[in-house]
């Protein structure tokens, strides 16, 4: 067993699971590391085992796919070809010659270090949600759309009785229907995209009838529950003093500006808001992998430009779970062949490659349709907190840009502390880039998560080694 090549897969969402199963089925020993207590990632996030949910599928789409993935994982774990390390928060992957060391902290406390050695690494680190600021977005009761879904799927918890779901993107529909099924009244679904844009891209979208049917299914559920849906509308303010009490929603004009006089106040105790997703690329960046815009660049085999490093799923570009499965499968097959010392035959994964092409086209079409309002920065008033960690306001960032000449996110950070806090700019960087008038660029963070100084200090003296081969 131990003389077989060893692949470390980071992330147990759809991409990482597909990759793990594919690689293990083709003779590779796999260590699957994930920060959660159970496999699934964000998309297939499962209720905590202790909650003993008999019907978790009520919270999920495409449950059959999950059962196949979980079954495949269980089979390989039992056979000894896969080791699944839960509660492992990976903060750094080190490459020395042709060997890799994956450094993780054990959760949930994240103080004790652990290291895993491998011959190759497959990054399936997923993504996180982008939220653009508006007045009141820091009030308790305002959370990301994905956060509302994560709390529902993982903890079987909702924050209130009446919610508004707002922003833009394909995530809003399942979040609204999920909350509604869990007993939350959805006071409004607010989408800034223009339905006409869907018509203009109808050919590319219709090429994925399954995906369209999924969307139509959510829309039908909302209709049945009589949820008010506003398209070409945006939330302009969240109201409340100690917690959310209402939102004001307004119409957008053809240029993407708020139409004066169209605001309407909607009482609610929860606002689930999101404006799309961003990929987690920290581990790839420190490994030196080339990025294409915000995404890890990969070739047809899902290889990065760093030898021995593969990437699959949202980290290579936001495209959803079906695309992540196809990419993960291809990455796992390629890694298995390459680790066995031969070039793979792409015909072996022709079906996955075909769906990868189609789903990438579909994702590009969706991306062109779902867009935040063109003039969203106008919603950021001078006293709107933009950097949630360091409490840096819109006026401070504008002063850095207009008075002090900052033209990029890093300079704004040095002048204002925006992006210098706990989240390391993950939440505010898109807004800061918008206010600075520059493109959002990768951040080049040295570590993927906060690391105790004691761990760094002892890194060279007490390497806790697991999985060396």
């Amino acid at each position: 067993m131990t003389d077989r090549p060893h692949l470390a897969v980071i992330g147990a969402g759809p991409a990482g699971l597909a990759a793990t199963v594919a690689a293990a089925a083709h003779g590779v020993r796999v260590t699957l590391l994930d920060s959660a207590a159970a496999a699934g990632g964000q998309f297939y996030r499962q209720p905590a085992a202790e909650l003993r949910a008999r019907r978790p599928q009520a919270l999920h789409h495409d449950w059959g796919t999950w059962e196949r993935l979980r079954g495949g994982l269980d089979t390989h774990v039992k056979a000894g070809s896969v080791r699944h390390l839960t509660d492992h928060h990976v903060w750094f992957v080190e490459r020395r010659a042709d060997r890799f060391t994956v450094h993780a902290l054990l959760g949930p406390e994240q103080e004790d270090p652990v290291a895993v050695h491998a011959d190759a690494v497959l990054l399936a680190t997923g993504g996180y949600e982008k939220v653009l600021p508006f007045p009141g977005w820091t009030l308790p009761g305002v959370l990301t759309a994905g956060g509302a879904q994560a709390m529902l799927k993982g903890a079987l918890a909702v924050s209130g009785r009446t919610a508004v779901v707002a922003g833009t993107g394909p995530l809003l529909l399942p979040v609204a229907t999920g909350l509604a099924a869990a007993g939350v009244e959805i006071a409004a679904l607010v989408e800034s995209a223009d339905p006409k844009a869907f018509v203009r891209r109808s050919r590319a979208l219709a090429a994925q009838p399954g995906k369209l049917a999924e969307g139509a299914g959510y829309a039908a559920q909302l209709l049945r529950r009589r949820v008010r849906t506003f398209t070409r509308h945006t939330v302009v303010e969240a109201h409340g003093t100690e917690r959310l009490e209402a939102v004001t929603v307004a119409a957008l004009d053809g240029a993407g500006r708020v139409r004066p006089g169209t605001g309407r106040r909607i009482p609610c105790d929860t606002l689930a808001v999101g404006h799309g997703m961003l990929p987690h690329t920290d581990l790839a960046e420190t490994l030196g992998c080339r990025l294409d815009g915000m995404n890890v660049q990969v070739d047809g085999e899902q290889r990065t430009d760093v030898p021995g490093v593969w990437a699959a799923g949202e980290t290579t570009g936001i495209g959803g779970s079906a695309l992540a499965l196809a990419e993960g499968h291809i990455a796992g097959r390629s890694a298995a062949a390459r680790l066995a010392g031969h070039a793979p035959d792409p015909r072996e994964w022709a079906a996955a490659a075909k769906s990868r092409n189609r789903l990438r086209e579909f994702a590009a079409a969706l991306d062109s349709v779902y867009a935040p309002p063109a003039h969203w920065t106008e919603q950021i008033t001078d006293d709107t907190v933009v950097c949630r960690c360091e409490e840096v306001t819109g006026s401070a960032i504008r002063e850095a840009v207009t008075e002090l000449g900052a033209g990029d996110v890093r300079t704004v950070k040095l002048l204002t502390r925006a992006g210098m806090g706990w989240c390391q700019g993950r939440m505010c960087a898109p807004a800061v880039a918008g206010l600075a008038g520059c493109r959002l660029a990768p951040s080049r963070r040295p570590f993927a998560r906060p690391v105790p100084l004691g761990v760094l200090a002892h890194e060279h003296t007490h390497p806790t080694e697991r999985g060396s081969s």
Partner: protein
Amino acid sequence: MTSPLDLAQAHPRPAFTVTLDGRETEALPGQTVAAALWAAGVTSWRTTRGAGRPRGVFCGIGVCFDCLVTVNDRPNQRACLVPLQPGDAIRTQEGTGHDD
């Protein structure tokens, strides 16, 4: 009214007691700090270092660090990630969480 627990047909073992700022409240086995506090109607458990404003869950997946809370005298725990144990003492975190 439907609840998420009903929807998923969850049958957790009996609730246990934890405290929030010294007051007793109940939590279900498997619940995170954030989930138990939501169930108790609490949406904020931190005040910011600068303006002293209330914060609670924002990203829900451990990325934003807005839901920081003090559990058993350990400050800066992410409420959305940390599961509760019987008897845990949750404290609203003020500022850095270290008594200034």
